[in-house]
């Protein structure tokens, strides 16, 4: 098999090399070839040996980490659909099939349309097709409601890949997380399909289902916010498991926790960002409770562990905030960056009357701020090291 492939590749390669018939499509051939077989390239200078790890493997680890969230999201989308349509006694397989019918088109649209942009830019700009796309192409659909129109998926991923990434020079050079850029674009361009309480699960016409964060927007007379949530069927346990309306990938905290474990154990995702994000959320929660102004939303009364399981906090802090390109690059910077994301999420959640959820905006905001955070960390480092040198 391997011998056969090697032979085929050797036969095909000249067509794509300079002077070949498909010279311009070389990035496509290269991506295809290195997908099947690891490259034969040897080191050019010291060090003469290199670690086995490359970017492809790294990105695949992120995709692996996303698989529990994806599978659960598919199941949940089907489960919600069957629930809302009153299909009783549906089996696990039926839920999965229904969920796949809802979600797979969204995921495929994202991959196909995003992939086309990626290839187009690779060919025009003559850079290799970057593996980072494998992650963005999956992250983005997982942040969308299962009812999103496919054309919006296509428009969103196009915006994210082109404006969020490629115009800066591709993966490694982007300022913002491309998947979140895509989502933010949809959120502001087509709010009707990505906010409110009608879109978070597939249901018959006229179905509505408020998310926990939606419920927390306004006070209900005579009951605490926890009671309000419980009355609507949201308990701490149910929100951890995640059988509830929401974006495809974010509802289950368990699935996100598995993803976090994969990312941290494989060393691909930054535990510093995840941990400091949680700490920031906790700090924000206590601070806002301390302020306790009547202008705050009832969500402020929730203990922090509710905030950790509500909405997309878990998904955002595990998969979005840890994107190494758009996050802070220094270790100290990562602590600050993660902490402020957690803190901002909470502040926006309880203080902003217009937005029920804040994860996307908090992370995007900190993406923009990350270079500034790093700048100060590096300046402090220079100051320290020159003091040590000039002592």
């Amino acid at each position, binding site marked *: 098999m*391997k011998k056969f*492939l*090697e032979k085929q590749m050797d036969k095909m390669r000249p067509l794509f090399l300079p002077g070949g018939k498909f010279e311009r499509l070389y990035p496509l051939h290269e991506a295809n070839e*290195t*997908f*099947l*077989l*690891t*490259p*034969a*390239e*040897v*080191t*050019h*200078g*010291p*060090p*003469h*040996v*290199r*670690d*086995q*790890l*490359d*970017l*492809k*493997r*790294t990105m*695949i*680890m992120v995709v692996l980490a996303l698989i529990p969230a994806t599978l659960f999201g598919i199941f949940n989308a089907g489960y919600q659909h069957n629930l809302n349509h009153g299909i009783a006694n549906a089996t696990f397989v039926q839920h999965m099939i229904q969920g796949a019918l809802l979600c797979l088109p969204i995921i495929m649209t994202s991959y196909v349309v995003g992939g086309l942009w990626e290839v187009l830019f690779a060919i025009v700009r003559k850079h*290799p097709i*970057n*593996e*980072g796309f494998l992650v963005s192409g999956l992250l983005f659909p997982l942040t969308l409601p299962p009812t999103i129109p496919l054309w919006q998926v296509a428009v969103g991923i196009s915006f994210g890949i082109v404006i969020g990434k490629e115009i800066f*020079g*591709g*993966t*490694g*050079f982007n300022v913002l997380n491309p998947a979140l850029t895509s989502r933010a674009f949809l959120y502001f361009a087509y709010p009707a399909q990505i906010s409110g309480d009608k879109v978070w699960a597939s249901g018959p016409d006229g179905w509505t289902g408020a998310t926990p964060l939606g419920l927390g927007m306004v006070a209900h007379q005579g009951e605490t916010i926890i009671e309000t949530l419980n009355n609507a069927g949201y308990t701490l346990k149910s929100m951890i498991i995640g059988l509830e309306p929401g974006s495809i990938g974010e509802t289950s905290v368990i699935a996100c926790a598995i993803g976090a474990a994969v990312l941290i*154990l*494989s*060393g*691909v995702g*930054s535990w510093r960002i995840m941990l400091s994000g949680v700490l920031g959320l906790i700090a924000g929660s206590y601070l806002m409770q301390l302020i306790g102004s009547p202008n705050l939303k009832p969500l402020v009364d929730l203990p922090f562990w509710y905030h950790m399981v509500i909405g997309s906090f878990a998904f955002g802090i595990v998969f979005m905030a840890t994107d*190494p*390109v758009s*996050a802070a*690059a*220094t*270790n100290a910077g990562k602590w600050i960056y993660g902490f402020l994301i957690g803190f901002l999420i909470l502040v926006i959640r309880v203080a902003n009357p217009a937005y029920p959820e804040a994860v996307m905006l908090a992370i995007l905001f900190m993406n923009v701020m990350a270079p500034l955070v*790093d700048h100060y960390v*590096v300046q402090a*480092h*220079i100051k*320290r*090291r*020159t003091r*040590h*040198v*000039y002592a």
Partner: protein
Amino acid sequence: MASYTIRKGLNIKLAGAPEAAITEAPEAATVAVLPAEFGPIKPRLDVQEGARVKRGQALFHDKKQPALRGVAPSAGVVKSIVYGPRRAIERIVIQIEGDEAESFPRLDPAAVKSMERRTLLELLQNTGLINLIRQRPFGRAANPEAAPKSLFVNGMATGPFQADINAIIKGRELAFQAGLDAMTRLTDGKVFLCLNGAVSNAAALAEAKNVEIHTFEGPHPSGNTSVHISRLDPMKPTDVIWTVKAVDLLQIGHLLLNGESPSHRVVALGGPAVKEGHRRYYRVRIGQSLASLVDGRLADGEVRVIRGDIFSGEKAGADDVVGLLDTSFTVLAEDRERHLLGWLMPGFSYFSVSRAFLSPWLGGLNKEWALGTNQHGELRPMVLTGLYDKYMPMNIMVDYLVRAVLANDTEEAIKLGILETLPEDYAVCAFACLSKMDLVGIIRKGLADIEKEGI
């Protein structure tokens, strides 16, 4: 004396370690001297083709520093002078005949200690041995005009496979101490001798006199001189420090005690692609062809001979010679093997420091690996951050230093500490770099730019 434990870094258990036994290398008929070994000098010939030369006789001198000479490592007849592009002298080949030697002052050990700095430097220049003493920043041959604030002698070998002084020093203890004593004459500051704290060192090292001894322990690059400097005598950008390998002091000591320019040196030959039984130390003629050393000792198939160790050495060419500065050669197989769907495989049989493969979970880092030269991936932009910090045991932010160099921001690079390091210090970071960036090359370019512009 103090001991330092370095935690950051990486030890690779590379297969094919050279046995600590010294064998005579096959006799060669010719030796060659390459002026390029002296760095950016302008050589002027002192001999013609056909001239008879003694060992230690000048073959050429530098136009700018006439005292700096390249000498014949063996006596004989100048067989040919080979010119490279733009009429630069590429090599001077000597047909070995007899063993007549130019005589230099012969000193007894006590006299070395009271030598005049100027006399000593002139002697080192006249014999070309000054080239063994390197100058920081930039890692060039020592410039006699400079006043080094201290001098570091490196008696460690943490990279696989650097020549181990303990394997070579036996029977040459006096020469070593004479070399050390000479070093104390070269600086007004201290002379530091840095030894490996994890091994039991020969008495001549552990009880060396007239120098300050410190031990370092930990994974590579804990044996690199930059690390020692950072702990013992940190540099300012304007400071000058001289460094020398302990094994090279044997050459200098030999010159001082015997009054003769050395003709031989000991080099280690190791690596998975050296045939078993041939992985050992060899006593070679300085200037003999590399081919005469390695022929018949290498594994079949395409191999790469590296001058030095796998982290800091350069690829050797087919007609290279064993130069004055060489202390070891490592041979690896050129590994062009491709793996099916490598990005998906669990990775039991891959050497990786990354826990994204299963092998490090199963103790793979403690096993012996016959690594080849495969790059295991293609060049990509820098993506994952903070990876390099685990392998840089100095107060250096590698990510940002690399970015500063790539942005041609030499001022920032100096602030971030590039002058306190040499390219070799980034080799372990580069090994682990999943974007397969050429960190060593980037830092080398950064240093070259700063050297050209002036600090």
